[in-house]
C-alpha cells in the first residue's frame, strides 16, 4: 500500500453522532452516541502513523496511540484494546472526558493542516467494544507479598491501584463514599459518562485483584500513620482529590438556594436526586439558576440544572469565553441546550427575598486589563455598570481548595495552600507515602490525575524494590467468589506462569 500522506487521507474528521439539543435536555442519556464500526475505520485511516508520534508524549499516560489505531485498521479490535489497556485502565472513560484538544489531539501532525485525528473518540470506541464484548485483561500476577493501600477511588487512585496490582501487590482502595469512582461517580454527569461505563471499568480493576472498601473515611476511621505502622501497609498512595468547594465571601452566601456545584452534582449524580422522591435525596432546584464560574464543573452543573427542570440557566463569568477553562465542546453543548452566557460579569451580592431565600443577584460588568501571573488578562470592574437580575438558585463553581482531613490527621507536609507537598517522584514527607491528583495539584483533569497515579506507582515500585515483570495476560474465568460492595469479584484462574523475574 502506498504511504499515506496528508493528501491521501480522508480530509474531514468523522463526525460524532449526537442527540439533538431539544431531545437531550429532556433526558439523562449520553449526549454523544459514539462511533459506529464504519466511523471508527474511516477515522483510523486519517492517522499518518508518524514514526516519532507527537501525540504519545502529549498523553499524560503515554498511550501508544498509533499502535492502537493501527490495530483498528488491521481489524484486530481486541488487539487495539490490549494496546490501550496496557497504559490506561480506563479507556472508555478517558475517551469521553479527556480534554484531547489540549493533549494528544492538540499536537497531532494531521492537525497542522487538517482537523486532527479524533483520538479520543477512537479510544472511546475501543473501550466501549471491550465493555460490550466483556474483554478484560487479567494478567497472571505473581504475588510479591507487598501490601499497598490507596486512599480514594477516583482516577488517581484507580490508576495507581491498577499498576500496583499488575506488579503483584495486594492492593486495597479505601473510599469514603458508598460507591467507588470518586469524581467519575459524583462529579461527571450521566449524560457525559454513564454509570454503566464506570461500573464496567471498576469491575475490571476488581478483576485485577484490587479490593475496594467503601464507607471508609481514612483520617478518621484510621490514619495514614496507622496504615503504615499498625495495619501492615508497605506503601500508601493518597488520591483524595481537592474536593472542598470555594465560596466568594460576598453578602447572601448563606441564603437558601445557594449551593456549591459539588453539592448539586453529588445530589444528582451519586444520590440520584433526579429521581426524587423514589430516591430519597432532594435537590430543591429553582426555575432560574445562576451558576458562577465557567469551568467544566460549571458546564456540568448548568446542563444538569436544565435537565432537572430549570427554565433559565445563566452562566456568570468574570472573564470572556476565550479565557473560559471549560472545553469548547462543553460550552457549545451548553449553549445549544439553552444556557445563557454572561461573560465579563462578576457577582457582588446575592439578594435576599426577605424570607431567607435567594431572590436574585447583583453583578458588575468587567473589562480585561493587563495579563496577570497566570498569563490571562485580569478582569477589572467597569465603574457604574452594576446590574441586577432575578434568580432563585445560585451555584458556586469557582473551583475547589484542599480538603483539610488528611492534613489534620497526619504529619504529612502540606504546602501554603493546604495541598499535600510531594517531590518529583510523588513522594510525600512521610516515607512510603505517595500522593497525586487534585490533592497535590488542585483541581485538574481526570487524565492528569491518572498520570500522577501511574507516576506514583512507578516510584512506589522503586521504593519497595519491585522489579518490572512482564505481564502475561490470560482470559479464563471461574465463577464469582466474593461479593464486595455489590461488585462481583472473579477468582483468577491462572494457566501460565511466566514472568521476566522467573526467566532470569
Amino acid at each position: 500500500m502506498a504511504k499515506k500522506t496528508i493528501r491521501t487521507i480522508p480530509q474531514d474528521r468523522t463526525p460524532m453522532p449526537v442527540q439533538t439539543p431539544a431531545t437531550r435536555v429532556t433526558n439523562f442519556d449520553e449526549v454523544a452516541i459514539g462511533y459506529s464500526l464504519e466511523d471508527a475505520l474511516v477515522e483510523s485511516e486519517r492517522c499518518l502513523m508518524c514514526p516519532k508520534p507527537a501525540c504519545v508524549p502529549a498523553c499524560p499516560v503515554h498511550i501508544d496511540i498509533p499502535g492502537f489505531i493501527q490495530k483498528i485498521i488491521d481489524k484486530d479490535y481486541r488487539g487495539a484494546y490490549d494496546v490501550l489497556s496496557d497504559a490506561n485502565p480506563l479507556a472508555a472513560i478517558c475517551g469521553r472526558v479527556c480534554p484531547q484538544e489540549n493533549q494528544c489531539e492538540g499536537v497531532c501532525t494531521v492537525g497542522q493542516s487538517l482537523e486532527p485525528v479524533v483520538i479520543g473518540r477512537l479510544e472511546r470506541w475501543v473501550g466501549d467494544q471491550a465493555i460490550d464484548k466483556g474483554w478484560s485483561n487479567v494478567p497472571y500476577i505473581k504475588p510479591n507479598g507487598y501490601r499497598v493501600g490507596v486512599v480514594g477511588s477516583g482516577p488517581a487512585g484507580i490508576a495507581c491501584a491498577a499498576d500496583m496490582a499488575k506488579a503483584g501487590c495486594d492492593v486495597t482502595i479505601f473510599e469514603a463514599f458508598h460507591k467507588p469512582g470518586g469524581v467519575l461517580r459524583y462529579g461527571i454527569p450521566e449524560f457525559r459518562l454513564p454509570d454503566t461505563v464506570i461500573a464496567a471499568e471498576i469491575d475490571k480493576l476488581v478483576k485485577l485483584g484490587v479490593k475496594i472498601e467503601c464507607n471508609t473515611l481514612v483520617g478518621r476511621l484510621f490514619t495514614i500513620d496507622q496504615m503504615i505502622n499498625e495495619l501492615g501497609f508497605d506503601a500508601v498512595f493518597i488520591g483524595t482529590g481537592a474536593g472542598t468547594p470555594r465560596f466568594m465571601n460576598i453578602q447572601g452566601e448563606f441564603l437558601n438556594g445557594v449551593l456549591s456545584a459539588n453539592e448539586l452534582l453529588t445530589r444528582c449524580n451519586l444520590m440520584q436526586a433526579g429521581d426524587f422522591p423514589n430516591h430519597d435525596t432532594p435537590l430543591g432546584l429553582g426555575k432560574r439558576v445562576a451558576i458562577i464560574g465557567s469551568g467544566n464543573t460549571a458546564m456540568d452543573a448548568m446542563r444538569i440544572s436544565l435537565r432537572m427542570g430549570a427554565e433559565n440557566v445563566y452562566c456568570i463569568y468574570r472573564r470572556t469565553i476565550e479565557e473560559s477553562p471549560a472545553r469548547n465542546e462543553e460550552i457549545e453543548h451548553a449553549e445549544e441546550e439553552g444556557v445563557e452566557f454572561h461573560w465579563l460579569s462578576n457577582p457582588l451580592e446575592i439578594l435576599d427575598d426577605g424570607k431567607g431565600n435567594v431572590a436574585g443577584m447583583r453583578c458588575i460588568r468587567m473589562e480585561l486589563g493587563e495579563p496577570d501571573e497566570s498569563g490571562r488578562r485580569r478582569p477589572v470592574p467597569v465603574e457604574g455598570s452594576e446590574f441586577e437580575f432575578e434568580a432563585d438558585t445560585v451555584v458556586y463553581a469557582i473551583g475547589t481548595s484542599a480538603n483539610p482531613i488528611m492534613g489534620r490527621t497526619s504529619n504529612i507536609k502540606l504546602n501554603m495552600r493546604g495541598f499535600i507537598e510531594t517531590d518529583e517522584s510523588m513522594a510525600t514527607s512521610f516515607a512510603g507515602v505517595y500522593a497525586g491528583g487534585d490533592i497535590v495539584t488542585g483541581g485538574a483533569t481526570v487524565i492528569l490525575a491518572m498520570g500522577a497515579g501511574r507516576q506514583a506507582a512507578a516510584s512506589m515500585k522503586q521504593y519497595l524494590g519491585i522489579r518490572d515483570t512482564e505481564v502475561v495476560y490470560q482470559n479464563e474465568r471461574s465463577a464469582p467468589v466474593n461479593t464486595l460492595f455489590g461488585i462481583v469479584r472473579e477468582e483468577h484462574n491462572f494457566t501460565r506462569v511466566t514472568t521476566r523475574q522467573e526467566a532470569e
Partner: protein
Amino acid sequence: MSSSKNRKFHQINSSTPEGYHACAIEIVRREDFSDVTYLLEIRHPMIAKAAQPGQFVIVMSHEDGERIPLTIADFDRENGTITLVIQAVGKTTKEMQRDCLVGTPLYSVTGPMGEPSHISNVGKVVCVGGGLGVAPVFPQVRAYKQAGAYVIGIVGFRNKDLVFWDDKFLQYCDEFIICSDDGSVGIKGRVTDGIQRAIEKHPDIRELLAIGPPIMMQACAETTRPYGIKTTVSLNPVMVDGTGMCGGCRVKLGDNKMKFACVDGPEFDGHQVDFTDLINRLKRFSKEEKLAVEKWTDIPK
C-alpha cells in the same frame, strides 16, 4: 410495625487487613424510648474503636436512601458496637423506625466524622442535653468525668414518660438535673432554668456543652453569655457527604465567617454561632421533606 418487604438490603462481605475487619453492619439491639425516639446499637468494630465523643456517622438505610448524619450516642470498644438514638421526624427516620430491627443490616454507616470534642479536666463543667440531644451528650459526660472534671448533667424532657438514660447519666454525673415542661419529673421548666440554678450554686463553672434543637442551644448560649462561661454547641445542619466536599453543612460564625460543620465541627463556640442562619438553613428542604413523607405514607404497607 410491618416487615421490611420491598427493601434492598445488602449484606456486606468484605475483608480488610487483620484487626480492621469490617463486618456486615448489623443492628444488634433496639430500644424504643417513646413513639418517636428509638435506639439502634450497631456492630461496627472499626468505628467503635476509632470513635471519640462529639463525632458522628453518616447512615444510609438502603441503597436508594439518603445520607443522614447521626451523632454517636455511645460506643463500646470491647463489644465493637456504636449506639445511635434517632427521632422519627421525616421520611428516612420514620422508615428506619419501621424497618431497622435487630438482625437487619444497614446499607452503609460511615464514620466517625467530625472533630472530636476537646475534653480535659477543666474543673466544673455543665453538659446539657435537650430533646434528641440527651443521648449524644452522654459520651462527653463520661469523658469529662473520666478526665477528672466535676460534671453537672442537665437534661430536658417534655414529661416524665419520655425520660431515658437517667441511670447512665447518674453513673457519671456529680450532679444531675432533670427538667420537664410540665414538672412531672425533676424541676419544672426548661434546661435554661436548670442552667440558671447550676450557675447560682456554682459560680465557678468553667465550661458548658449543649446539644439539642438549635433553638435550645441558642437559649443555652444566651444564658451563659452574661457570665462569660465558655459554651460549646453541637450543630446539626443539612449534610450530604460529611467529608467536607460539598459545603451543604456550612454554618455562619461571628463576623460572616464560614465553617463546614462536617469537618470543622460539629462543635462550635455557641457565642459565635449565628443561630438565625442555622435555623433558616434547616428549612431549606421543608417542601421536599413534606412531599417525601406524604408519598411514603401513601404507599400501602
